[in-house]
């Protein structure tokens, strides 16, 4: 069984190599090859899952060392995998949703000339993401971490002929570098503190290290998580990343890669448990981001950007839960999985809508689509109900638990976090209802595209609707199944640990509260977008709306605080380099050259001059020797 773990990574990696190096001969078959290999990876995951279920609760983890990667003295890095319940959950999510999105892409990318390459990148992403969650040490995890970053960069910029896509890819890559530096520093700190960076020794000995060190490691890990998971203050890249093809947004920028930060924090739970200050930072980031994303989501007219804001916000929930410690780890992962289903479904639905509306993304130019695209409407609608936490659907179960856990943190902190989570739930209901109403209800506000083609909305082909239907089932059922008998808690508890906090509110009160804010949010949206006609061009809006449209001024903030000082610094350094460093270097070179030019004049070709030089030299030699003796 252990050997299958390596195969899990190797299969999509092989697919990536085959598709990227295979050349034009594979152009036609490429999408199918990529999809089959993704499905094969899912199959292997399923076999491993079945095998794991067959073993007792505490010996479910598998371990497999493939080879020793960097053995240098006391420094030892292995390519070794660890498959426990937490990794298993991710493996199934990644390969499952991944396979569905491969299938969807067959239809979505059918007319793209470079689709072989696209599927190669998707396979590369799967391999890197699986490596990330299967690694048994932080260094190998880092390899996967960078791998998904690379895949994300390549896929965001897949339509690189569009300058906006190329810029967005670059932006995502650069912002992520900031986070990656955090991860690399965290790994170095681990090595100096624990002498290792394998999970087992580091996490087992975490509480023995000093709290200061652990806080530093924790904050660096948080920085890494912020980059990868688009959390404040490194959130700015996610909205722009929507320039990538929609299946990419669904897989990488909604369901899987952006949740890597949550995985990192959950996996490193032992470190955070022993570093309360770092945990406080984590919950702060989570709470701020869940509100930030939700507010941005309210103001966006671009359907994908609205969903991107929502993703940010939902991951904020997960980070918040992970920051709560053992009260929240399980729910963070549970929300991660249910979110994987419904958010992927929503994105695929958005893609389906765009596909039939000549790639129009402005929701103000949709309207009334429910009659033309019934399957999309129903699956999107189920995803919508799930994300706003409609009682009984997936999102309800997982989000409700997080809100409960936030209150259970206790004290003022608990009230603040719980309040923020509850407020976030209300805003979520508002902006998702807005998306729903603008897209599927109301009047047709369609406009011809720039070539003058009138949109003719139609249902998408089977390859696209099939994944949407499967994901809709997940959106509806997953949460309930997980909560049945506390199945998910029991499944993950051996890895992450679990404790019940002391909530000042009863579970029923929290649930009641969530339902109430849900209704308020939906009602507000209905009042604004359901009862009155929607203009094709957005009204000017309040100051907050205008700020939210500009992503709450994140780019302006970055520009003033980071980019400009950075530019001044580089200009200064360039000036110093030109004037000072080059001056010294060139000055030295010039003086050597000048000296050389003068000295060579001594070499005038006359034997008599040479003889004088020898005579003088000998005289100096003798004089110096005598002088040495005299001294």
């Amino acid at each position: 069984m252990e050997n299958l773990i390596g195969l899990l990574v190797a299969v999509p990696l092989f697919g990536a190599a085959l598709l990227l190096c295979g050349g034009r001969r594979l152009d036609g078959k490429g999408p199918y090859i990529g999809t089959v290999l993704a499905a094969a990876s899912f199959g292997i995951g399923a076999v491993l899952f079945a095998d794991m279920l067959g073993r007792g609760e505490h010996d479910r983890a598998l371990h497999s060392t493939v080879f020793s990667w960097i053995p240098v003295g006391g420094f030892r890095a292995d390519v070794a995998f660890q498959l426990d319940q937490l990794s298993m959950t991710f493996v199934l999510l990644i390969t499952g949703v991944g396979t569905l999105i491969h299938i969807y892409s067959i239809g979505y990318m059918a007319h793209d000339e470079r689709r072989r390459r696209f599927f190669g990148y998707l396979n590369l992403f799967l391999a890197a993401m699986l490596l990330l969650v299967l690694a048994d040490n932080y260094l190998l995890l880092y390899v996967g971490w960078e791998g998904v970053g690379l895949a994300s960069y390549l896929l965001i910029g897949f339509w690189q002929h569009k300058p906006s896509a190329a810029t967005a890819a670059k932006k995502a890559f650069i912002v992520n570098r900031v986070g990656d530096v955090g991860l690399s520093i965290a790994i170095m700190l681990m090595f100096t503190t624990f002498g290792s960076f394998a999970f087992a020794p580091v996490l087992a000995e975490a509480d023995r290290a000093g709290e200061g060190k652990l806080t530093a490691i924790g904050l660096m890990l948080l920085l890494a998580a912020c980059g990868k998971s688009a959390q404040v203050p490194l959130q700015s890249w996610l909205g722009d990343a929507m320039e990538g093809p929609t299946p990419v947004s669904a897989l990488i920028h909604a369901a899987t890669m952006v949740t890597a930060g949550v995985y990192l924090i959950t996996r490193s739970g032992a470190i955070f448990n022993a570093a309360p200050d770092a945990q406080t930072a984590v919950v702060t980031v989570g709470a701020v981001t869940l509100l930030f994303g939700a507010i941005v989501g309210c103001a966006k007219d671009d359907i994908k950007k609205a969903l991107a804001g929502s993703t940010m916000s939902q991951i904020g929930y997960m980070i918040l839960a992970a920051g709560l410690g053992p009260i929240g780890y399980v729910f963070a992962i549970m929300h991660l999985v249910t979110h994987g289903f419904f958010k992927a479904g929503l994105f695929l639905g958005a893609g389906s809508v765009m596909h039939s509306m000549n790639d129009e993304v402005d929701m103000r130019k949709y309207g009334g689509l429910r009659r033309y695209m019934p399957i999309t409407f129903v699956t999107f609608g189920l995803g919508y109900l799930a994300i706003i936490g409609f009682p009984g659907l997936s999102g309800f179960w997982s989000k409700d638990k997080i809100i409960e856990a936030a209150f259970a943190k206790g004290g003022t902190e608990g009230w603040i976090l719980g309040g923020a989570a509850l407020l976030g739930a209300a805003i979520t209901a508002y902006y998702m209802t807005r998306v729903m109403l603008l897209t599927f209800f109301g009047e047709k506000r369609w406009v011809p595209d720039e070539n003058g083609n009138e949109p003719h909305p139609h249902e998408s082909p089977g390859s696209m609707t099939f994944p949407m239907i499967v994901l809709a089932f997940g959106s509806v059922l997953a949460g309930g199944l997980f909560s049945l008998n506390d199945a998910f808690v029991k499944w993950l508890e051996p890895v992450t640990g679990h404790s019940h906090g002391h909530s000042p509110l009863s579970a029923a009160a929290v649930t009641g509260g969530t339902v109430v804010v849900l209704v308020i949010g939906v009602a507000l949206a209905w009042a604004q977008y359901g009862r009155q006609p929607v203009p094709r061009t957005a009204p000017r809006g309040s100051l907050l709306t205008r700020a939210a449209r500009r992503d709450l001024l994140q780019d302006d903030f970055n520009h003033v605080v980071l980019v400009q000082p950075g530019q001044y610094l580089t200009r200064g350094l360039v000036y110093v380099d030109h004037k000072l460093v080059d001056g010294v270097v060139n000055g030295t070179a010039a003086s050597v050259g000048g000296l050389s030019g003068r000295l060579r004049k001594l070499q005038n070709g006359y034997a008599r001059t040479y003889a004088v030089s020898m005579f003088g030299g000998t005289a100096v030699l003798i004089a110096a020797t005598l002088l040495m003796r005299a001294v």
Partner: protein
Amino acid sequence: MTHAATVHSLWTTAAAAPDKIPSPHIEYGQLSPTLIVIGAAIVGVLIEAGLPRRRRYAAQLFLSVVALAAAFAAVVGLAVGDYGTGKAHVAAMGAIAVDGPSLFLQGTILLVALVAVFTFAERRLDPVVHGNRVDSFAAQAAAVPGGEAEKAAVKAGFTTTEVFPLVLFAVGGMLVFPSANDLLTLFVALEVFSLPLYVLCALARRHRMLSQESAVKYFLLGAFSSAFLLFGIALLYGYAGTVGYAGIADVVDGQVRNVTPALAGTMGNDALLLIGGAMVLMGLLFKIGAVPFHMWTPDVYQGAPTPVTGFMAAATKVAAFGALLRLLYVVLPGLRWDWRPVMWGVAIVTMLGGAIVAVTQTDVKRLLAYSSIAHAGFILAGVIATTPDGISSVLFYLAAYSFVTLGAFAVVTLVRDAGGEATHLSKWAGLGRRSPLVAAVFAVFLLAFAGIPLTSGFAGKFAVFKAAADGGAGALVVVGVISSAIAAFFYIRVIVLMFFSEPRTDGPSVAVPSALTSSAIAIGVAVTLVLGVAPQYFLDLASQAGVFVR
């Protein structure tokens, strides 16, 4: 030491009691490398006298190669027979030391000479003249350049096959030079190898005036320096009452055995020692081309036929450094607090002077000449270490450097235009595009000169600088590294010129050499890379050989 005393008594007691002269005892076996080479040289002269012209080339080439190979085999035999270490002693009545450094340097000189003979014998580079293949040497050396006699000689297809016995004589002198164990042997050896070199320098087929000018300059300045050397020897004799190395060393150390009555007034006079020592030193520094005794180098390197330049630059340096080492380590170790600071100064001006003046050179042969001056400075840094590591690092550096030099000058013979070798650097622009292999090989040699890792130049430079630093000459190493940096500039500049410049339309062509020059270059590259990649065996060898006998 006892032998030295015997030689000395030979001179001083001869007049009084002629019947007591002992018959000299000569260890023929241990002197066999020198004897073979000198013997072959004499046979070579006989060949010139007896054989018809058209047969001489093949006979001379055969004779030289066999003699040099046999002499090398003899050196190896002696080394295997433990004469380098355990059985090392002073032979030939105290005149010749047979020890590790002698054998190592003799072996190096013989191999260098063997490879050099290949380049001497090359007959495919110059265009065919009147149906005859010719080499780099004048048709008839005695003919006036451009005169009727010369034209007739060229037309008749004459070649100067005398170069082979000349080289053998020079090699014979060089073999004795580093193993000479008394000052007179040293002087005789110096003249034996210098005179053939003066003649060889004058023998270029092209640019004969330049060649002859260089020979005359070399001869004049060489004679000038020989005079200093000889005068220094006289002063040292006056100081010590002997010319034997061990005897002088004893007097320096204050252990005077037998005071010669005739010299009682001067013996032990330190002024004689210091002035005489400095003058002998100057004679050797002239041969190695140290600043300020270097000025002949660029002119002679440029004017001499390029194969001769390569031989001279490699072999002379090996022999002269060997002699310098023996002088400083055997004769004057007791005086090192006096000569070390002076040699510091010489090393510094040599390293910096060579490197700095090379920067503005435009002729590749002159560039290599200045480069050889800078390298002499680097080797001096190892000499100044005055430790066993210093000796072995210098031995290693000499072996490494001589093959790089030979190879580099051999490449220079290939790049030609209508006027013969195209030595002006501007003509080398873009050579890498036209003849990638030749340019790449030259680049390897340049990188070795610059001391880039994985070439022998790096291993050698590292060894001497390490020895110097360990020997308390850290400041010298700093200057050495700075000079290396300056030197790297002009080496790399040539590489840039060859590979990153547009080729000139009137650029030179690269001649396709025969197997002779090809193998010389190949051996150069091979030694450069082997000593660079796996130097340890040879460093160990040099380290074993690094003990002088007294």
